[in-house]
């Protein structure tokens, strides 16, 4: 058994950590947090130059052609650094959708642009409240044009193109949904930025009015593709969440060692120690589940749906738990804007909703476990 990343992959992780420590300090994150920039353009450019944006994109489409295990280790570092860039929407959602369902021409047009940092992509799925479900897709596609409103769209205000879920039938079945590819700079589109929990990753409302769109994948197969994209993104996001959870745990630990109260480091009090030990437990469970997700993702295993849901649940809970208790360990200082604790708290709770909420994934996991047991 070799249930671990290879030495090369670990080296890549170290490289990514070093790069992000230098280019993505909390100070740099705060430029975006404070609304002075919509995202960190220099960092985005740097990520492209490092080959990180296209790490899982095949060489024929301008990527490094390394693979998804490599993408997982980079994702972990992106989460650890709380990177204020549209990495997840572009790389986990848009690029994955193109890789799964894109035509040769579509891949040629967009994948090299993603790898080089020239194009930001996203997935426009949600329409207000609710979780991923065919019946929540109201935006229509007819005669090659889209009409409807998507919100929230992650990184929608800075995206160059979007994969859009649209209704192309009314049978009440999954086959009613098709996917489309939209050049957001081409007209028929109105984009409005929305304030959100985590300003380091923007959200937008996009209105499509007779907007020209080309199909992505076969008509009526949109929901199947989307499900696969969400599963794949769930694993990749889980690595970001694991990275964030680890960082929050580290911050809490470091503060507990440093802060003196009642004449001793607060980390010597069992109430604080046990809180940090419990954070370690949930972060460890999340990491192990995510490793299994990584294996399933990288091998296209039949176990991916179940593995992705378990990784998603575990990593969501761990990041929320660690981010929340990191503030608690910090006490009053943790509730200041000046300390970085709230950045992770915001990111943890925003990420918990991004691909569908925790209860949605809990539902998915049970369905998938039952399916396996029945088989």
């Amino acid at each position: 058994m070799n249930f671990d990343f290879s030495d090369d992959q670990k080296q890549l992780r170290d490289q990514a950590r070093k790069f992000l420590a230098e280019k993505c300090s909390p100070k740099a994150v705060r430029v975006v947090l404070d609304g002075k920039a919509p995202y960190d353009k220099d960092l985005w450019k740097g990520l492209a130059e490092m080959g990180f944006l296209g790490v899982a994109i095949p060489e024929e489409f301008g990527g490094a052609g390394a693979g998804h295990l490599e993408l997982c280790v980079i994702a972990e570092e992106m989460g650890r650094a709380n990177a204020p860039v549209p990495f997840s929407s572009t790389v986990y959602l848009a690029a994955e959708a193109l890789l799964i369902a894109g035509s040769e021409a579509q891949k040629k047009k967009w994948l090299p642009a993603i790898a080089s940092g020239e194009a930001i992509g996203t997935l426009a799925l949600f329409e207000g409240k609710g979780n991923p479900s065919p019946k929540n897709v109201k935006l229509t596609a007819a005669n090659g044009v889209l009409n409807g409103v998507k919100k929230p769209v992650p990184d929608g205000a800075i995206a160059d193109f979007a994969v859009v879920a649209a209704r192309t039938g009314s049978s009440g079945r999954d086959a009613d949904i098709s996917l489309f590819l939209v050049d957001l700079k081409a007209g028929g589109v109105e984009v409005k930025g929305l304030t959100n929990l985590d300003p380091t990753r923007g959200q937008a409302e996009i209105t499509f009015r007779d907007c020209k769109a080309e199909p992505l994948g076969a008509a009526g197969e949109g929901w199947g593709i989307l499900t696969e994209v969400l599963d794949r993104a769930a694993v990749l996001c889980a690595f970001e969440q694991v990275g964030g959870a680890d960082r929050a745990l580290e911050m809490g630990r470091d503060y507990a060692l440093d802060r003196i109260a009642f004449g001793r480091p607060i980390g010597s009090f069992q109430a604080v120690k046990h809180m940090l030990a419990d954070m370690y437990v949930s972060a460890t469970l999340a990491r192990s589940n995510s490793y299994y997700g990584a294996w399933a993702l990288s091998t296209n295993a039949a176990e991916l749906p179940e593995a992705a849901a378990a990784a998603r649940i575990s990593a969501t809970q761990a990041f929320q738990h660690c981010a929340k208790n990191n503030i608690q360990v910090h006490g009053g200082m943790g509730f200041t804007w000046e300390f970085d604790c709230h950045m992770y708290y915001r990111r943890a709770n925003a990420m918990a909703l991004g691909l569908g909420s925790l209860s949605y994934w809990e539902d998915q996991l049970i369905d998938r476990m039952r399916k396996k047991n029945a088989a």
Partner: protein
Amino acid sequence: MNFDDTPQEAAFRETARKWIEANAPKALHAELSKSSLGRIRLANHDIVEVGKAWQKKKFEGNWVCLHWPKEYGGRGATPIERVIWQQEEGVYGKLTQPFQIGEGMCGPTVMAFGSEAAKRRYLPKLASGEEIWCQLFSEPSAGSDVAGLRTRAEKKGDNWVVNGQKIWTSGAHYSDYGLLIARTDPNVPKHKGLTMFFLDMKSPGVEVRPIKQANGMQEFNEVYFTDVVIPDSQRLGAVGEGWSVSLTTLMNERMSIGARLATGLPEMFEFCSNLMLEDGLAIDDPAVRSKLASWAAKSSGLKYTSYRTISALSKGERPGPENSIGKLVSGIMLQDIATYAMDLQGAAGVLTGNDEETVQGQFQQMLLSSPSVRIAGGTDEILRNIIAERVLGLPGDIRVDKDVPYNKIPTKGR
């Protein structure tokens, strides 16, 4: 990243599998597969008796204490081979329960601190199951704070005379030998006045009394010592070094990696899949699904955490600290699952008999037994301290009794 054996591992697995296929007590397979929680009980057999038979057969085939040197009854196998063996032994591994303390804790301590003569005399018989060992550490007033123990050993010529009481000794009533830690000097701070011994459990003055537990069962014992004589040749380590000797023992206890901890999840999943509530199957209820999913993710997290540990062993690396979370997660989970299953049973949940509504009281039994999982082998609180101090590097507790002579430590009724 893969789950495949290396060629050597695959060959080893094949050898183990073939041997088990040819030798295992297959008649017990079905019954062993069913009981997943707590002590194993077999309808028509005594666990010690069938356990000894299986252990003896394995010993003859060179399949016990795999990682021990051959001259002491082991196989000289690598840690990963030991894990592969445990995987292949599967449910038959439950038959080794009476020998686990000897194999996991007493044996390694004798190996590290015993004389060559003692090692050759005792270890092969421990390995073969011919002689069973128990561990005599905990006392009524010294559980988590085991270094505060009171049992006294006083030197009389070439012997030690022991007086005191131990508690929570699993298997004391069928054990041949015991590993005993006792206080040999009460005038020095508590950690410094301890010494480790082993003794014949049939020695005059040793009295074993079963404890009736909170769950109504009797699995542990109290052991009383009245003027029990132990020859100095049965001392392990130097006089006053008992604490550091005990750390070896306890470290080995926590290295048991192959052992899968019961979480209650498979039982709960099956129960919810079959339970009809007013509005349909329990597993279709959103509240049930939410809890079940969280437990399932914890359970798979534990499974893949152990895979990470096994991978480190496979590469010849020292496993990381991640394996320390197992008992902490599974103990709480067992208790929570039991409580929730009974909640779903409603009024009938109170019944503990052979009732259909409660699936023969399996969760009720789980509820009543689960507190012990959270206490035995390190309480949840001690495990959190260990994680906080050894993994996260947080300071140890301020100990008010650390430098105080043992007999000056304030106490109740010493």
